[in-house]
């Protein structure tokens, strides 16, 4: 809500190119992604060596599959955090899309090849509604998406009468269960491919660069000829599309489209949605994304969660642990920025 708070780090970012090439390696080592990757490897090695069954083929498969889904949820939120906004309705969009998908294939008998793209377009459409309303009203996306999450989810429950679609074509659950090379879930592959595509998108396409520019400094972007309103709407549509994809992936994993799959109002997705990008170093104030960081963030969370579950800590306490993790992530990020700035290294 308060963009001025994160501004020091923004200006720090802007100063980076003046530092020259000499510090490339230093910058890499000090980067958030590098730290996260090291943390991820260490955590994994500790769990793999101390917990029995943690590194079994099946365990690795389920961890990978869940990383795939959580990465997609994180990317969905990341796509809108770019603008300095947020989208509370990602979970609602995911659940709505899954239900629309279920309706298309189960009730209407539309083949999967048609239903999947239609469902993703539907999700992007819900994102468009969010983006359009945010831009036209000039109200912060928090309150608009708070309202839309209630509306989307309420309408979905009203229309489906809270009944799931569990007679999906057998290919759907089979896809969720399939293992490439006996180990890797295709859901993980989908996320990795999406990460690669998004990296290219933000770095090399005009639209992607405009999104970053509009997020970093909307006024400057507007002055340099970017139509900020349209860009923000596009960001929300991207979020909607990615949330839809995450919803479909979750449907494949559970083998059914269930209205409560993202919890009441889709609130259960909020934590993974913010945890992954924030751990990965995406600035909440906008203007900077880290696609790889988001992937690493989601991976770290899942490696941690699976380990804690295997230690029989109890799934309820894991909720609290994840909350603490989010808190630690933002605090260490803050500390890191302060230290770097004090040493004049950025």
């Amino acid at each position: 809500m308060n963009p001025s708070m994160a501004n020091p780090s923004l200006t720090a970012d802007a100063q980076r190119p003046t530092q020259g090439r000499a510090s490339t390696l230093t910058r890499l080592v000090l980067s958030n992604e590098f730290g996260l990757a090291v943390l991820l490897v260490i955590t994994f090695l500790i769990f793999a060596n101390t917990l029995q069954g943690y590194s079994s083929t099946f365990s690795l498969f389920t961890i990978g599959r869940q990383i795939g889904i959580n990465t997609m949820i994180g990317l969905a939120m990341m796509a809108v955090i770019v603008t300095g906004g947020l989208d509370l309705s990602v979970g609602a969009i995911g659940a709505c899309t899954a239900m629309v998908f279920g309706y298309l294939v189960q009730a209407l008998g539309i083949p999967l090849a048609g239903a999947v793209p239609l469902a993703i377009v539907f999700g992007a459409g819900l994102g468009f509604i969010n983006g359009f309303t945010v831009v036209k009203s000039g109200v912060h996306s928090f309150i608009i998406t708070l309202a839309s999450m209630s509306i989307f989810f309420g309408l979905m429950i009203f229309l489906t009468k809270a009944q799931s679609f569990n007679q999906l074509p057998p290919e759907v659950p089979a896809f969720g269960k399939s293992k490439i090379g006996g180990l890797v879930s295709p859901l993980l592959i989908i996320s990795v491919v999406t990460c690669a595509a998004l990296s290219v998108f933000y770095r090399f396409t005009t639209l992607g660069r405009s999104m970053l520019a509009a997020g970093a400094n909307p006024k400057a972007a507007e002055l340099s000829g970017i139509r900020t309103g349209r860009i923000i709407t596009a960001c929300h549509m991207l979020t909607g599309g990615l949330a839809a994809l995450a919803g479909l992936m979750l449907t494949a994993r559970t083998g059914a489209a269930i209205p409560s799959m993202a919890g009441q109002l889709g609130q259960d997705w909020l934590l993974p949605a913010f945890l992954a990008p924030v751990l990965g170093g995406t600035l909440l104030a906008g203007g900077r994304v880290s696609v790889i960081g988001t992937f690493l963030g989601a991976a770290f969370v899942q490696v941690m969660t699976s380990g804690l579950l295997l230690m029989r800590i109890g799934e309820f306490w894991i909720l609290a642990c994840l909350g603490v993790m989010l808190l630690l992530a933002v605090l260490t990020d803050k500390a890191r920025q302060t230290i770097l700035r004090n040493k004049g290294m950025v």
Partner: protein
Amino acid sequence: MATGVFTRAFDNDWIGPGLVSLAAVIGIAILQPSFLSPFNIFVLLSAIAVNMVIALGQLVIIAIGQMNLALGAVGGLVAISFVGLIEVYGVPPLFALSISLAIGVFAGMASGYIISRTGISAFIITLAGLQIFKGINLGITEAQPFYAVPQTVKDFGNLSMIGPIPWLIIPMIIASVGIWYLLNHLRIGRYILAIGNNPHAAELSGINQRATVTWAHAISGLLAAMAGIMLVAKLQIGQPTIGDDWLISSFAAPVIGGAVLSGGHVSVVGTFFGVVIIAIITQALVLFNIDPYIVQVVLGGLILWAVGINRWRELRVAKIQKQGN
């Protein structure tokens, strides 16, 4: 200042929602006379009492230009702590009440302290708080309720004081008058609004931002705790799910009441009518046998509607000011 009483009255935040509430009561009463039966009024007032305290908990945070996602999680944690202390440790109810209220204050204070100390956005800190408090709640209860609610507490939540007026109205009145007085007549309230209006200017004029933000969150925690215990009294059980559904309505009521989300401008009376409108609509859906799931849609729609109206008023004020210059 020279404008007439009527013009000023209509520029008030609460006139609009107040008139809507009145119209809704009259309209529904004509269509469905049982709406004004003493029993129904009792049910309506009980719901309003609890929801008003919840809304006030969010109102204080909206006033400083932030948001509190952890409101419901704090309320739920306090609710199960209250009953759990009595059931498991045999703590005397009054003592358990003080401890659990203190838990609420402390939880709020912790969020507020971290937010003001680090400058990280309240959204992300209270999202973490939501997860932590909810996790502790479920970790303690394992999603099972506590049952040992004392009879006096049950009576407080379910008996009427006079005619159709429930006892639950008492904490609501205390909280509402308290917050109104705090925001309008106490220094801390002035500071809260000043920070909400313009944090930078507030800091420059010597207001201790850290302390004020921390206290605002502590007050929010106290109100969440009160609401949690009121719900225990009303439901007669220490449910771990208490607080799960507070998020939307806690924002809807203040926004309908004209609160500006960037902070600095809130209305306690307006929020009260916001709560009344929500309660009436929820009740009406039940009375007319409409699918209760649609309540969510209506709540979302109400937020958008209110945001639209507030925006329009803002633009109008800006226009008038421009003309004045």
